[in-house]
């Protein structure tokens, strides 16, 4: 969670663009990763990320700190946006070209190629999981969210999230063993 996040949210609610800008900068990479790993296509991930932040900006007055963080609220929006996206089409195959993941500029080119291949395999493995299992793993280990934040974003209890996480790792392990 961002330092003084609640204050920033309050200022953003008052229409302070800079405050929302700071929230955006903090959460953009996380939300983008979450969406990209769900849709497996860079351009579509960018469009959907755009929608998430636009909805958040337009409806920020509706967010009230009732025990769950602004981040969890953003993930709720991201989940709804991707659910709407899948309502109209079937999930696509994962490919390196479609993912078009950009690596940090300092990455060694050879390492970069190997990394991209590994990620491609990993994304394919994640695709084999149930929707909720994939979401839990991405939020917990890719975006580093706490069990509580994941529970708030998904709308389940913390116990349920732990159970889903356990099952998801087991399934993923099985996938790499075969």
């Amino acid at each position: 969670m961002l330092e003084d996040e609640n204050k920033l949210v309050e200022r953003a609610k008052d229409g302070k663009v800079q405050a929302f800008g700071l929230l955006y900068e903090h959460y953009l990479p996380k939300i983008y990763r979450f969406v990209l790993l769900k849709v497996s296509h860079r351009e579509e991930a960018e469009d959907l990320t755009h929608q998430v932040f636009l909805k958040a900006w337009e409806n920020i007055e509706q967010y009230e700190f009732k025990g769950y963080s602004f981040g969890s609220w953003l993930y709720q929006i991201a989940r709804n946006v991707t659910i709407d996206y899948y309502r109209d089409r079937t999930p696509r195959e994962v490919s390196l070209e479609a993912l078009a993941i950009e690596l940090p500029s300092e990455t060694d080119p050879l390492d970069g190629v190997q990394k991209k291949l590994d990620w491609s395999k990993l994304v394919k493995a994640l695709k084999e999981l149930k929707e909720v299992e994939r979401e839990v793993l991405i939020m917990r280990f890719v975006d580093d969210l706490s069990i509580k934040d994941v529970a708030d974003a998904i709308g389940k209890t913390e116990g349920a999230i732990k159970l889903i996480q356990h099952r998801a790792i087991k399934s993923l392990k099985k996938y790499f063993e075969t």
Partner: protein
Amino acid sequence: MNEKELIEKLKTLQAIEPGPEFAESLKLTILQTPKRRMGGFGMPVNILYQSLNFGLAMTLTAVFILIVISGITGSLRNQILTRALGVEILNQNTALSQHIDQQLSDAQYLNTVAEKTNLALKEASTKGLGHINPLILEKEAGNLNFKDPVNTNIDVLLDKAL
């Protein structure tokens, strides 16, 4: 691959980042978008304004139509309606009274016929043929030929029928 290695592998995906150009252009686009202001009951001001505007427009249109129908042309409309309705009601009244008169006349006729029939039946049941005018009986009796019961008229009629 054990659980720890798997989690480490997942954590490598943290290196995925949006392109800097995309991040910057999206930021500009979003922050330039006018934020919806909320009105009462958590309703965005522009939606509230639009719905009020629409409601007002509909009300004004309805009032205008009402004025046109019943206000400005009221006197003229009343005259036309009164005349038109008056003529129509008069026509209907005439037709109805004619119909009633006809019905009454039929009823009177039927009543008279019933009375006469009733009287005739009474006389027939009490006096037998006595109620019939004796002059007519005499005339009919003259026409009858009791000696020769053959009635030639019947033959003629039978010939015609065949």
